[in-house]
């Protein structure tokens, strides 16, 4: 009989190298087709007794953790620094070009000046490109990251290319729909509509290529691509001086070329040392269905980010002669708040990752009898991290205000102050909600995050649209504020519920 027990032990080890508790072992034994009778034949009263016996004989990760703890402090610090640098570089890859553009706009306000109508069309194209590709970016991150993590570059490339094609196809459909709506409602003149459509498509492609570069682990390429494209377009401008409008169309096109080249080289580099060349192809519909929540989350999240600008842009009176246009003061105020948010987002990414690792360590270390301690330590860590996010955001926002406020003159207008105040509060709450949402996504609770973002978006759109039309453009930021509050409230509630039983959620994740 001992041979049978050894056989079951081997089976359990083969299926799961790390089991959470006795019940999991019992479940595994039953899944192998053994029942209480088999346990009795092996000399145990039932399956649970056999499971307890096997659980004690299984090697526990706690012992590995003990050895890890013995490692030097400097090594752990180094590991943490590398992880932090990776997270920060990924987030800052998007923030740095944004900051550069903001600085350029403040230092040389006329450098990017275009007609108001073209400005409106471009704003819409930029926002639409981010919203419609947000879902595909999330899917690329998930699926690409998953296969790269498994050292399956061929599968990663296949899925990245497939998602890129799907994204591009859906963007072409969206573009046609947008142009049709533009003509139907007479939003812009035909020339500007065509330019906006080109910009929309190229920007969409650029965002998806950047996502692929990120999952390839060469996120540092993104600022380089942006910088080089800006440089080449500046050179073209110096030589031919084709005008700001054409320059603004050319810039993303050059960026797409650079990003495509980097992506191809990245895949080539990954595939030159393959772990294995042939892998089983996952079923398309199953994979796509599993990715749908992430698509929805990405789309909703980016819609949430730009809902206030859409509301503010639509609040422009028809008598101004423009169909869509964001008030310059509103844009200035919200740009500052968004800058603070983008920088804080890097910290949020790192802290949420750190929190999940801390959770994982605790789950491995602490036994079932220490669950209260487990919950308390997680709660304390979470509160500290949230406090750090608040402090960091406020610090960055104040610093940005002092750096850029010189350009507002001696006394900034009341509208600007209201915009910065409401926008800053909104983005601060959004940063906190982002922290909670990453935790939820980390434990495979994406539907909860999705619900929170959906409710927040509804509040954002409704409040922003109504308030900006009724009281003034700056109150579109109040919509963001309210939406972020709803989002934070919902995601915070979800995380608190999850943390009531962290062991269970950790094991199912």
């Amino acid at each position, binding site marked *: 009989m001992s041979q049978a027990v050894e056989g079951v032990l081997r089976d359990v080890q083969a299926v799961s190298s790390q089991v959470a508790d006795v019940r999991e072992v019992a479940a595994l034994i039953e899944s192998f087709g053994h029942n209480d009778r088999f346990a009795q034949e092996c000399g145990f009263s039932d399956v649970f007794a056999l499971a307890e016996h096997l659980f004690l004989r299984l090697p526990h990760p706690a012992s590995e953790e003990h050895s890890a703890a013995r490692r030097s402090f400097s090594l752990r610090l180094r590991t943490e620094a590398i992880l932090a640098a990776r997270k920060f570089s990924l987030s800052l890859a998007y923030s740095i070009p944004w900051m550069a553009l903001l600085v350029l706009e403040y230092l040389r306000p006329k450098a*990017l000046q275009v007609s108001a109508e073209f*400005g409106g069309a471009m704003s819409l194209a930029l926002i639409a490109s981010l919203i419609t590709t947000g879902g595909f970016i999330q899917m690329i991150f998930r699926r690409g990251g998953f296969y790269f993590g498994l050292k399956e570059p061929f599968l990663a490339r296949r899925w990245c290319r497939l998602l890129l094609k799907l994204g591009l196809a859906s963007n072409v459909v969206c573009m046609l729909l947008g142009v049709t709506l533009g003509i139907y409602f007479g939003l812009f003149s035909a020339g500007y509509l065509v330019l906006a459509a080109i910009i929309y498509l190229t920007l969409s492609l650029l965002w998806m290529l950047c996502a692929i570069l990120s999952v390839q682990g060469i996120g540092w390429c993104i600022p380089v691509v942006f910088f080089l494209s800006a440089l080449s377009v500046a050179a073209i401008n110096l030589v031919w001086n084709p005008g700001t409008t054409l320059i603004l169309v050319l810039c993303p096109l050059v960026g797409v070329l650079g990003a495509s080249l980097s992506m191809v080289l990245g895949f080539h580099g990954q595939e030159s040392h393959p772990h294995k060349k042939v892998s089983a192809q996952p079923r398309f519909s199953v994979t*796509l269905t599993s990715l749908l929540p992430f698509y929805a989350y990405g789309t909703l999240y980016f819609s949430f980010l730009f809902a206030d600008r859409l509301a503010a842009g639509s609040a422009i009176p028809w008598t101004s002669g423009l169909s869509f246009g964001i008030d310059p003061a509103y844009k200035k105020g919200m740009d500052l708040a968004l800058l603070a948010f983008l920088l804080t987002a890097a910290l949020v990414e790192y802290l949420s990752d750190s929190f999940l690792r801390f959770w994982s360590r605790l789950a491995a270390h602490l036994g079932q009898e220490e669950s209260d301690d487990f919950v308390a330590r997680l709660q304390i860590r979470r509160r500290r991290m949230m406090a750090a996010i608040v402090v960091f955001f406020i610090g960055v926002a104040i610093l940005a205000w002092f750096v850029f406020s010189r350009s507002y003159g001696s006394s900034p207008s009341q509208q600007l102050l209201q915009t910065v105040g409401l926008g800053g509060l909104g983005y601060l709450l959004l940063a906190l909600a982002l922290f909670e949402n990453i935790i939820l996504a980390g434990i495979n609770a994406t539907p909860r995050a999705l619900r929170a973002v959906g409710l927040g978006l509804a509040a954002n759109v409704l409040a922003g649209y*109504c308030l900006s039309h009724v009281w003034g453009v700056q109150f579109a930021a109040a919509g963001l504020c309210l939406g972020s509050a709803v989002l934070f409230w919902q995601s915070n509630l979800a995380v608190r519920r999850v943390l009531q039983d962290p062991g269970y959620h950790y094991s199912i994740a």
Partner: protein
Amino acid sequence: MVGDALRALWIVVSFAAIFFWFPSRLATANQQRGWVISLASSWVRMALCATLAVVVLPMLKVLTAITVIFLLAAAFLVTWLRQHEWGLQKGVASLQRQVLAGVRGLEARFFGLRLVARGRRGGRGESFPQAHPCYAWAKSLQDKEFLAAGFLAVVGLTGFLCWGDALRELRFTWPDQYVALLHAREAMLNIVAGGRPLVFPALLAITSLISGSDPLQTTRFLCPLVACLAVLCLGLLVGTCSQGAAPALIAMYCFGGAALPPAGDVPLVATTTMQKLAAIFWRNSLTATRATTEFQLGLSFLFLGLVFLADWCWSRRRDSLVDVACCLLLVGMVSQLLLLVLVVLGAAFLLRPSLLLPNFLLLGCALAIAAAFWPRPLTDEAAMILPAAAAAGVGWLVAATGTLLRFGTGTRAEPALLVAFAAVAIFWLPPHRPAKQPLEYEAVVRQTKELAENFPRQKWLLVAPVEQLPETLGLGGYKDLANFVEEYQAQVAVPEFRFPEPQEDLFIVVEKMPFQIFAREPSFVSFPVLTDITYRNYRSPAGRASLESAALQLCESYRRHHSDANIYFEDDRLRIYHIHQQAAVNMKAGASYRGEEK
């Protein structure tokens, strides 16, 4: 013409989709209610919602296409949730099933697989299913071919009479259309102007926002549609009251074709009681009396209100009572007099249902007579009720004749009645097209439309007669020609003079041959009308001629002393000057709008 027909079709389809199709999708299906009553109910409820929305939303400055689409989507969502018993989870699960089925289908196509079994489809040899809607239609039309042909003929005739001018000309046929257009444009610009008309501009604004059409075009094509709807509603009322199709068709013919007695020979100014009575019915012929579009809408709601009341009396359905309330509200918004008529007729109907049509005829005549003797409390609206009342009266007479014939012979007399009426109509009651009253040249409207299409919004200004204000509001600037002439007449000869208007392009419309609204100067004009500035400058032939002459002199004088003026358009009767103001361009460059994009 083809382009106009297509545009008209699109506007009519949009209107039908918003006010008939969409609300009928939202309403819970009630099998006991006939489809005509259900459709009418949807129309009344949606019209009320649209009117309230157009009253409230501009106050909040949120009346835009986005808001309207959002509200429609919200209504759809609420209905969807109601269908899923207010269970969001059920709804989401159903949605998930649909998405998964879509993904599976996509995969099947993507990999050339046919994972999803397709349902069996009927072969060619299958018999025509009896449950098919076409079968029910065909069955209901059996033995009624004659009536169906009559219905088509009446609707076709009404449509021809109503749509002819609208399809041919861009300019409006009736003065009230300008007021409706102005109110619709104000609402779409979120300007709270208040006052009547209320309902028709609301329908215009909503249809324009959804169809993406210019309100000018919407007004042009919805006016005849409203006239047709009023005729159909009268037919429904007469049909409901008389329980017969022939009286309804004849009433529709009389009302839609204005097939009523022509004007008689009566003195211009009635002094005696008999002359006044004669003047009511024969000076202004019923064939020439045309209700404004808003009033036609009011009449439609009045007819439908009575139909719903009849439906409630016979079936005691609560839905019908709600519809009656909606009609009361809508009629009250259109006219207080019509509301009074509806209340009186409704009360009379409840007391004696069979006498509704003669009561309507009597009430119409009584109001017209009262308006002739006491014009102060009553208005022209009393006269506008009379053609509808007369048509309803004709319908009642035909219904009474049909009943007598049926009692006498014991057979259905409807085909015979229709033939007899057709013979009468050919000789004594031919259809009439009411004489139109345009207020401007066709070329002016076409050129204004071209300006709006070719020049950036709000970057141009039109100096023209007052009719151009509703046509340009929200698209470009407008300045009254009389004010313009008065203001700058003495200054334009100075070479340094520049118009202070901020717009880059100025267009001045000058009539070389002044447009004549009346064939001859009216022999009798009341004092308040005579002192009205609009009448003096634009309606009076002499006043208009003087103003246009002064405007022509002003423009020619400016052109002689300035190089930035040229002629934009010219034909035999009209000239449009174009002044491209460099000063305005420079001013704008100084205060340039900062484009905000990267």
